[in-house]
């Protein structure tokens, strides 16, 4: 089978890209107050780690990294389902998804 050979892209660029994506995700978590957007930024961080794992797996010629990415996707899907269910029940009680309202556990 013919390959899309990628020898021209250095591995450092993938490291840089996933570092940047991870930092954008962290910035989103600190930046926004809407809990749904915060969960989306957590997804962004998980995806940056996935991209890093796939790039290491491809460049080192080992399949294990891609299997780990598969499991990370499984955990992310479960996390999103539970998190959104929690958000819906919070919204039903407080009529808001603002995380600054949910500060009762601080005391």
């Amino acid at each position, binding site marked *: 089978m013919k390959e899309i050979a990628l020898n*021209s*892209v250095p591995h450092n660029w993938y490291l840089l890209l996933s570092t940047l994506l991870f*930092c954008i995700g962290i*910035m989103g978590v600190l930046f926004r107050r809407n809990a749904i957007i915060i969960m989306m930024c957590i997804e962004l961080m998980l995806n940056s780690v996935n991209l890093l794992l*796939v790039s290491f797996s491809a460049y080192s010629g080992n*399949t294990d990294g*891609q299997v780990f990415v598969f499991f990370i996707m499984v955990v992310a899907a479960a996390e999103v389902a*539970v998190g959104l*269910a929690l958000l819906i029940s919070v919204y039903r009680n407080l009529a808001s998804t603002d995380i600054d309202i949910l500060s009762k556990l601080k005391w």
Partner: protein
Amino acid sequence: MSQYLFFLLSALTIISALYVVFSKNPMYSVLSLIVCFFTIAGHYILLNAQFLAIVHIIVYAGAIMVLFLFVVMLLNLNKETEPHKSKWIKVAAVITSGMLFLVLIASLRTADIGTFKLPEYNSIGYIQNVGSKLFTDFLLPFEVSTILFMSAMIGAVLLAKKEK
């Protein structure tokens, strides 16, 4: 050729990720996150991980983002109801993440990660190889993940149910 594709996909990924953070309307955030996931799937195809690219599109764009979209529509979130932090907290958030980025880049510059080169012929991302790995070496985690999914599903139904 592949370098240009890499730059194009990376630019799209970063712009859409930034738009997720800075967009005022949650609906636009969700839609640009879908664009971001599609470009990441493009990166997987460039890295010759076809199985993961397909699974990524099916799981993220097909299931997770639809769930997000449903919740945003169900809760009727829009520009007017969107809460906002004060200006100083936003500036602090940008500075904090920028400093983390600087620290990570500075440590990556001197790190010895080995000199990997993508082999001329690599078929490790094909569905045959990933599948045989998944069902031989990683069989137990694969079965455990089904229990995780089951409990997550039951938990989600239980949490979202109306209290009597």
